[in-house]
């Protein structure tokens, strides 16, 4: 059963990702990416990361991709009349070779023989006893409190930066 779900979500995610790269119109690319992100949310649930799955859907599909769609519609982009990918053979071959090498290296590195290091204390039963959200929240607000607070600075800087950049004229 788990394999069936994994294959469904994984194939949908992979196919939607390939579709995103091949689509001519940026709107369809964005919709393909949303589909891939939803499938990935399903994979998170299979991995028993329920909180991450929910946040993933909210943040990516709900916020980031809506922002993308807004910008696409704001800029009124037409579908590309020429081929959507570079026709320059050097660019295409570099991209494909790079991706092929990367895939080959990762496939060699992470085959079924992969050995895992020492296990942590949060096994499935422990996490289920307290609940995924509580367990993650406890770590987030104890061990990672300072990085968590620092992300607020990043968000503030991004907010100010986006407003300054998108403004029509600087006074």
């Amino acid at each position, binding site marked *: 059963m788990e394999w069936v779900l994994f294959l469904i979500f994984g194939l949908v995610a992979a196919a939607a990702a390939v579709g995103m790269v091949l689509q001519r119109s940026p709107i369809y690319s964005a919709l393909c990416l949303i589909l891939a992100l939803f499938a990935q949310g399903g994979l998170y649930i299979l991995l028993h990361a329920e909180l991450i799955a929910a946040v993933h859907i909210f943040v990516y599909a709900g916020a980031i991709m809506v922002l993308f769609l807004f910008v696409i519609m704001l800029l009124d982009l037409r579908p590309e009349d020429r081929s*959507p990918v570079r026709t320059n053979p050097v660019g295409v071959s570099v991209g494909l070779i790079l991706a092929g090498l990367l895939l080959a290296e990762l496939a060699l590195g992470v085959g079924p023989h*992969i050995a895992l290091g020492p296990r942590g204390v949060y096994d499935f039963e422990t996490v289920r006893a307290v609940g995924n959200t509580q367990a993650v929240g406890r770590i987030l607000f104890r061990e990672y409190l300072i990085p968590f607070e620092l992300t607020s600075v990043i968000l503030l800087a991004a907010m100010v930066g986006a407003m300054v950049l998108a403004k029509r004229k600087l006074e």
Partner: protein
Amino acid sequence: MVPLWAYLFLSAFLFAVGVVGVATRRNALVIFMSIELMLNAVNLSFVAFARFLHSLDGQVFVFFVMTVAAAEVAVGLAIIIAIFRNAETVNVDEVHLLKG
């Protein structure tokens, strides 16, 4: 149970598709979406490792990656809007203001 390597293969595939997208597409917005796809591929391997190593640190890292990705999208889309305003295009081949 689905083994770890299956998730890692899928993650590697998604990352490679993202690399191809960044290297071959012309539209700046689609390049940006490909970067998001790559970030998500890494997130998937973070969560998979967290599950199989009985540790929750990977899930916490995914939060930070999402925060940075959200900030990056806000700033990046603002830059793309500014480029479109100046150059009337988001085709990266036609934007060469900094070219000498």
